[in-house]
């Protein structure tokens, strides 16, 4: 007989950590982006995606609102806005 014995891969996706945000969330302006990918690299959740310039965005289901993407963007093309704002 076995109790819980192993976990299947990548199942943390079931945990929508976006619910952790309380006051602010990032807004990807997609205007002056140079596709340096710093936001992709720095996000602790790994929830930012994009390829060409001005295509970068995050997955709000998982974004915890830490604001690191805003800090690292060399073009200030990401800003923090009120959580309630419609994007």
């Amino acid at each position, binding site marked *: 007989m076995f109790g819980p014995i192993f976990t299947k891969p990548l199942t943390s996706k079931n945990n929508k950590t976006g619910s952790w945000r309380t006051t602010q969330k990032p807004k990807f302006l997609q205007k002056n982006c140079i596709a340096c990918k710093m936001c992709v690299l720095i996000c602790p959740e790994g929830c930012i995606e994009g390829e060409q310039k001005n295509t970068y965005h995050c997955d709000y289901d*998982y974004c915890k609102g830490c*604001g*690191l993407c805003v800090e690292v963007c060399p073009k200030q093309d990401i800003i923090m806005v009120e959580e309630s704002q419609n994007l």
Partner: protein
Amino acid sequence: MPKQILFACGHTACAGCGQAIAARLVIETAGTNTMVVNNTGCLEVFSTKYPESSWGVPWIHSLFENAAAVASGIEAALKYLGKEDIQIITQAGDGGTADIGLQALSGMWERGHNILSICYDNEAYMNTGVQRSGLTPFDSDTATTPYGKQSFGNPTLKKPVPEIALAHIIPYVATASVGFPQDLQRKVKKALSIKGPKYLQIHVPCPLGWRHTPNLTYKVARLAIETGLYPLIEYENGALSSVRKIKPLPVEEYLKLQGRFKHILNSPEQIKKIQEIANNNIKRYNLLIQEETPSSSI
């Protein structure tokens, strides 16, 4: 082509966690042909709380101090099966590396296993509530080295684990930082291309334990390097092969952003001692960017 996810969202790391950034970059660089052994610590706890796991590669956690030994067993088993091309990475915090995990690492290094050991250095036992470790820096306020009437915080210097690793004569030893993510990725790739034991110590700020806002993780990490307090170095076959040269900023720039050093900001004597640590690093590793001389401008 969509990149295969090897470290998924939904883990329960604090917002702004430096270790989460580093762990994801490490495994994304390593790729699918990798097995990971993790010691007990923040990373293990926040990435594998049953019934969920963030990992997209085979992953095992045993105890606090034995990842290096478990990995040695995996390596031996893969050798027995003729599958030696599979990469093996061990991961541990600073406590699980420098303190309780040092014996197993030392044995693994001495035996020469083909394993990359990563230390996520957030400079204290964070998962258990910010107690000091052998890698806690001088004057850091922690739960077991609190500042007080007769204390300025942690009284000792960081244990020089990269030097201990080098003393074992292993082919690759390096430090890295989440303040320099591309350099981190380069070092992981480089390490995995070398056969034998490899050690990579990654500086990862902890917003909770270091007491800064989550959005400062990147800046704080960079300042640690730019003040000379955390040298970015790389050794191959025992010889220093690269350092990140800096225009040193005064250590205060780094200290003032963190609550764990707040208590010494008004103490010029303590700041001087910490500046000395930075200066020693700068001297030792020749971290100063050379000024341009007239002859070199030709």
